[in-house]
Structure formats: C-alpha cells, structure tokens
C-alpha cells in the first residue's frame, strides 16, 4: 500500500504549497491592507502639504524690507513761519513731505556713488506710500526736531519687499507699472550698501490693516484685539450658561418629553451650519435689536450661541464621569441635592469642563462665516480700541475675517499676509488645544 501511495502523483493540494485560490485570497488581503495604509498616508500627506504650504508661504510676512535714510527735516518746507506752532505744522499734508523724502533718497544714492539713470521721483518710488505719513507723524510728535537731520527706517514698497523675498522676479515685471528693472538695479545696489535690509516685522503682529495700495503696512494686531473681545464675550456668556444648562440636564431634569426635546435640540444645534448662526445674528441682534454692526459684541453673541452646544455636550460628559458615590456621600451627610452638586460634583468635573470650554473657544476663534454676515469684513479699523466699552462696541474685524479680507484683495502681496495671519491664528489654536490637553492629563481623575 505504501508503494502504491508513493507511485501516485502528489495530491495537488498540500498544506505546504499554496493553491491559486489561497494566493488570490492572500493577495486580496495584502491589497486591502495597502488600501488602508494608502488612505492614512494620503491623509497625513495632505496634512503635511497643508502645514508646509502655510509655513513656507506665511513666514515671509514676519520679515519686512526697510530702507534706512537720513532725512533732513527742512524748516522751509515743514514750518514756513518758523515758530514751531503745532497747528501750523499740522497744516502741512503728507503731500508736502514727499519732496523731503525725495531729497533724502537722492542724497543717499549720490552719497554712495551709485550710478543710476533714475530721477529722484522714481527713486522715491522704492519707498512705501506710507513713508510720508510716517514722517509726518514723527514731525507732529517731535516738532523740535525740525531743521535737524534724522535717521529714519522707512517701509519699502511691496514690490521691493517681494523682490527681496523672491516673490517678484525680473522676468515678470514688464507690465508692472509699480516697478521697473532700473529700480530693481538700484535696489540691488542699495542692498549691497546695507541701506535696504529685511528685519523682523513687529508691525505685522501688532499693527492695523492698511488700504489696498499699501500691503507692506498691513498688520493683524487690531483684528487680534477684535478676536480677543469676542472671545471675552463668548467666555463670559457661554461658560456660565453652558454649565448651568448641563447641570440641569444631567443632574436635575426629570425624564419627560420636554427634556427629550431639549436634548435632541442641543445635539441638532451642534450640527447647524455656522452661516445660519450668522443669519440669526444679523436678523436678531442687528436688524431687530439694532446693536451696532461690525461690533465684537455682536460677533461674540453669535459665536456664543454657536459654541453653547459644544460646551454643553462636553460639560455633560464630564459631569457624567463623576461617580454617583460622591453624590450619595454628600447627600448622606445631610447636604441638599443642590449643595451636593455645587459643592462636590461641580469642582470634581471642573477640569473636564474647562477643557471642553477651551476647545469650544478655539473653535469659535477660527470661525469666519457668521462674522461675514454681521459686517466684520471689509472694515479697516485703524486704531486699537481704547477701553473695554469701545472694544466691545466700536467696529472691528477679527483674525479670520481679516485673513479672508486679505485673500480677497487683488495684490498678491496680501496673500503673504493672509498666510502669515494663518500662522498666527494657528499658533493661538495650537496653544489653546495644548493647554486643554495638558489640563486634561494633569487634573483628570480616573474613578
């Protein structure tokens, strides 16, 4: 029998040798796995592309090109009467300052021995349109300096800035009326002489937005104040209301149809598109209650309504995680139900509530759509608000709205600002989320 077996050919299916079907199945298994890995890889790749994009395009906004000039503040132009009367000095418009700047740059160029075919006016074209206003501001603040020669750091105009950052290249400027290749030659020479240089740009972080023609002067600081005031409103309203609502729903609410409606309502409100809250804000706060448009107060109210569901949901989760034994113990030693909740459950749930609130605030900070409808876009607030009432009620923008505003403008120099603004916004969000995670890690109690 054994011989017989040996003579028969080996059976086609051996456990050691894979059949075609098994191979197919194994291949399918591998493919399936690869799809999964591929999906995660695509997701992570997108994140990497996004982050790389933001960082590579936005870091430029933190550097700005300045031109250093020695300006002779001619008495004959700025204070014809010579009596240093502030009212007279203020009468000289920025227009009257441009010849002084022209002289300064011409003197600098000839002093350095640079050979250029440009006229003084074209040389002054390298400076920002803001330069005259900057000079005038200084003179009005320090009238005693008239007649002296003062060293000034002027903003360079956005094309020069772009040239130094590689955004503007010679091949593409043929049709650009703001810059010529002779001017760029001069820029090269001045860079070599150390007159034109890039430095860290505090004005971008602290300053106000500027008009379409002066991208180099635009900053995000004032709209940051707008965002700050909105967040104050959200914090002051959403936290107490959200916590109160959660306490009621989690600890006291009877099981009946009304409670059901409220619960379903809250979970649905969390998924309502944010723009609908904007419509609500426009209709109720602005059209009906006549609160001022573009005011951070209104923005804060709208964002409050929007973040409330998020805060309620996370607060309820952290109240739920406090074990019933705590309540029972409090009730057992004679506390009322209210005392048990407020003296024992709430403090134990506080870290969770705080985490949820911070995450809700971060979400509100990045929200743009509702702000468009209540007029927080397209408004150029030139000065930071003075005091809390003005901060809440006077028109302002907010960080995301400011970024949107820059993205809408035609000059590509604003795009760099928009990406830079996003870096700042993301720094805020990352910080808030990190704080939330740390709070959770540090204070969360496992029961």
């Amino acid at each position, binding site marked *: 029998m054994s011989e017989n077996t040996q003579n028969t050919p080996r059976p086609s299916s051996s456990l050691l040798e894979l059949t075609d079907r098994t191979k197919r199945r194994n291949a399918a298994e591998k*493919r399936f796995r690869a799809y999964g890995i591929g999906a995660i890889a695509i*997701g992570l790749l997108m994140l990497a592309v996004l982050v790389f994009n933001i960082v590579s395009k936005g870091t430029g906004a933190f550097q700005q090109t300045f031109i250093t000039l020695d300006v002779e503040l001619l008495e004959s132009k700025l204070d014809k009467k010579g009596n240093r009367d502030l009212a007279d000095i203020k009468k000289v418009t920025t227009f009257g300052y441009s010849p002084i700047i022209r002289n300064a740059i011409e003197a600098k160029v000839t002093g350095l021995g640079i050979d250029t075919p440009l006229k003084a006016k074209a040389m002054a074209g390298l400076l920002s349109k803001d330069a005259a206003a900057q000079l005038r501001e200084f003179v009005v603040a320090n009238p005693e300096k008239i007649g002296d020669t003062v060293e000034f750091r002027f903003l360079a105009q956005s094309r020069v800035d772009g040239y130094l950052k590689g955004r503007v290249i010679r091949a593409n400027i043929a049709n650009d009326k703001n810059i010529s290749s002779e001017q760029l030659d001069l820029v090269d020479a001045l860079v070599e002489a150390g007159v034109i240089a890039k430095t860290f740009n505090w004005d971008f972080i602290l300053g106000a937005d500027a008009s379409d023609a002066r991208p180099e002067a635009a900053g995000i600081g004032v709209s940051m104040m707008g965002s700050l005031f909105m967040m104050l409103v959200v914090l002051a309203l959403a936290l107490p209301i*959200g916590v109160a609502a959660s306490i009621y729903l989690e600890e006291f609410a009877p099981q009946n149809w009304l409670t059901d409606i409220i619960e379903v*309502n809250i979970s649905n409100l969390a998924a309502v*598109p*944010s723009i609908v809250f904007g419509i*609500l804000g426009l209709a109720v706060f602005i059209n009906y209650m006549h609160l001022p448009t573009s005011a951070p107060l209104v923005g804060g109210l709208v964002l409050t309504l929007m973040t409330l569901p998020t805060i309620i949901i996370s607060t309820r989760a952290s109240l739920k995680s406090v074990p019933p034994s705590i309540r029972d113990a409090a009730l057992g030693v004679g506390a009322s139900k209210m005392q048990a909740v407020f003296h024992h459950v709430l403090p134990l749930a506080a870290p969770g509530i705080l985490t949820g609130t911070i995450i809700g605030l971060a979400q509100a900070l990045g929200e743009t759509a509702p702000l468009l409808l209540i007029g927080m876009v397209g408004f150029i607030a030139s000065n930071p608000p003075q005091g809390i009432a003005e901060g809440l009620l006077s028109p302002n923008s907010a960080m995301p709205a400011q970024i949107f505003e820059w993205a809408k403008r035609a000059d590509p120099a604003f795009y760099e600002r928009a990406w830079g603004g996003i870096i700042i916004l993301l720094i805020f969000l990352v910080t808030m989320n990190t704080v939330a995670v740390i709070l959770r890690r540090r204070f969360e109690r496992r029961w």
Partner: protein
Amino acid sequence: MPLLWLVLILLALSVAGFFLGRQRALASAGGNSKDLHSLPSYYGHNVALTGLVPALGVLAIWLLAQPLFIESRVSSLIPEEAIPESSTLGLVMSDVRRVAEGLDLAVSEGVMTPEQARNMRSEFSDVRGRLGEIGVALGSDVRPEVLNAAQSYRNLSNTGTTAMIFVVALIAAVGFAYSYSKTHKDFRARNVVEQGIMALLILAASLAILTTIGIVLSMFFETINFFSLHSWTDFFFGGTWAPNFRGDSELSILPLLWGTLYISVIALLVAVPIGLFAAIYLSEYANNAVRSFAKPLLEILAGIPTIVYGLFALLTVGPALVRFFGQGENGILGVEWMSGATSVLTAGVVMGIMLIPFVSSLSDDIINAVPQAMRDGSLGLGATKSETIRQVVMPAALPGIVGAVLLAASRAIGETMIVVMGAGAIAKFSANPLESMTTITTRIVSQLTGDTDFASPETLVAFALGLTLFVLTLGLNVLALAIVRKYREQYD
C-alpha cells in the same frame, strides 16, 4: 450708555444686598449662626438674587419687546394710501427706521437740536439733503407721513427707554426691600435660594430651544417677506439665478442647489473612501503605536479652521489644478479646460480633505462597536482578515457608516468658507467639474454683505436660502442620528 450703567448699578446693589441680608439674618439670631434655619450666606444670596434676577429678566424682556411694540404703534400711523403701489408696509417701515436713525445721528453729532429733529416738517425743509450731509443716504425724498412716523418712532423709543430704566430700578428696589424685610432667623432661605437657582438652571437649558426658535423665526418672517415680493414658484422651480439690483431679478434656488450638491458629492468621493479605509486600518490592523500616532494627526485636520482650507483652495489647490488642466500649451497636460483657479473640483477636493477626519473618526467608533465575537467567528471559520472585514464587519457597521456619511454630507452642504473662496460665483447647471459654480452658502454671504437693503427681494432671498439650508441640513442630521441610534441599539 445708560444701559451699561443700569446693569452695573444693579450688580452693585446685589453685592450690597448680599452683605446686608447676611448681617440682618445674623442679627436676628443674636449673632449665633446655629439658631438660623439656613447658613448665613443663604440669607445674603436670597436678598441679592431677589433684587437682581427679576429686574434683569424684566430688562431683557423689555429690550426684546420694545422694538416690536414701537413697530406696531408706528406702522398704525401710516395710512393705507401712503403706501406706494409697488411697495409694502414693511418697506415703508424700513424707510421710517432709517429716517429715525438719521435724526438720532444728526442730534448726536450736533447738526440738529433735539427740538429741530422733533419739529422738522418735510414740507418746509429738505430732510433728505440735511441727513445726506451727515452721511445718511436715503433712496428717495422723505414724504410727510414717513417723517411723521419717524418722529413718533424716536419719541416712543426715548420714552420707552426712560420708562424701562424706571421700571427696572423700581422692581430691583421692591425686590430688595421685600426680601430684606423677610430676612429673619426662621426664614427658610436655603429652600428659596435653591428654588431660584433651579429656575435659572432651567432657563439656561431652555436657551437652546430659544436659539432654535430664534433661528427659525428670524428666517421665517423674512422669508415670508421675500415671498410677498417674489413668486415662490420662481424660487423653487425657476431655472435661473440672476439677481439684478434694479429689480426684475430671477432668483431660483435650483442652480445653487445643483452647485452645492455637485461640490458635496465630489467632497464625499474624496472623503468617504479615504476616511473609511483609514478607519478600517486604524481599528482592525494598526498596532497601538501606529494608532496613537496617526489618529491624533489625522484629527488635526478636523481642528483646522475652514478659513485655512479656503485659502488653501484659492491659493494652492486652484492654481495647481490650473497648471494641470489649464494654461493650454504651457500647462502640464497641454489642455485648456480650466480658466480660473475657482472650480467645483477645487472646492470639492479641499472640502473632501477637511471631511476625512470627520468620516474616519465616526466610522472608527462604529467599527469598534461591532462585537468582537462576530470577528472571532468569521476568523475561526478560516476567513482572512480582509474577508472578515468586508463580509462580516462592514455589513454589520453599514447603517452606522451610512449615518456617518450623511452627517458628513450635511457638513459639506453647510460649509461656507471653502466654497466662498474656492468655488466661484457663477450660477449655472453644468456637469463640468472644472468650471466655477456657486452654492447656497456662497450666495447667502454675497447677498447679505456690503450694502444691503432689507426691503429688496435680492437681499431677502438670502433668508429663504438660509431657511432651505437649515431645513436640508437639519433633515440630514435627524435622519443620520436616527440611523446611528437605531443601529447602536442592536448591539447594546
């Protein structure tokens, strides 16, 4: 800012009330807090809350009700025949409000004295011109009825504000006096305070309902106004979106709905496969190290504000697509299919990226909820892991995943910033994903920003669009939550 002062005074009073009430309670017990019914601080809280809460409540209700009351009083002043034929009462009232605001501004800037503003006659002076000087632009000359109504509007709101301050102060004073007089050592302060706090808690919880009612009502009334100016058949069944601020616009939602759905479908085509496979891999294959590394990173995508995605679409993805499909000979594919950076594909792809973590984390939860016994059974019969997933886990998780996709669809339909920046502004029916198209949310933003006239159908249409959007997303959510909930019950 009399309102701010009023609130501050009320707050200061309630702090004072707290200490007074506490003191009086202690005094009534001869300084021995053991003789009191409640802890001393409850007596203080009682006085503070009885003074503060009713007053603030009345203040809030008054602020909400006053405009409504004045509106109805003033609109009764406008005779039928004063309403021009092509216009409605609502339109005339918005004129009235604008004139009244103009007069307020004129008085506050010192251009007019209060008496002048009160006694101005449109027969004798050029109201439009004078208000124009201070920057209040009026569309037409001010008719005597409108000016009259505007003046009584101002009168009523001034009297109303004065009366409000008086009434609120009175209520606060009565509340303080009453609760202070009741403060005695036998008074059951804790019970009263706890009842009051409970009422406040209930009020906070019902704010969610108030918000919903507010959303629905605010859009509902303006939508009715819109349909009184514009035919509803054109809105729902017309084929063209062509707003024209001189009137005679065609405002149909259908082209916008098409754009919205097209972009959402592309977004889901990107997000659902990637999100689903990522979720499957993370929950079924990945070891702990990969999981704890990849999951939070993917979820970062969900935390990025939509403005960032909008900018990404407008400045990165759009131009990249143009390099592929546009620019003719200079492009990578050498074709000329795409002219601008904004297109359905741009917005759809970026929105898809945004939705990846949304789909993946929801599906992850749902896949994890499938009982392990089902997997073990399948693996025990000799199925490979992928066979188990495809033939056992997925069918079991399918309803939940459908729910997750519906939730993602609702997010996509309601998404605003990405489409505002990436999709374009042209309303049309087209199947070409490289053309720019517009969506409901984009139109809401563009109809309601800038100079808006709440008497024209071109502005009011935004409310009808908003209501449609609200109903659409709410319907999807309710459906999705119902599916998810039903499915969960099966395995619990």
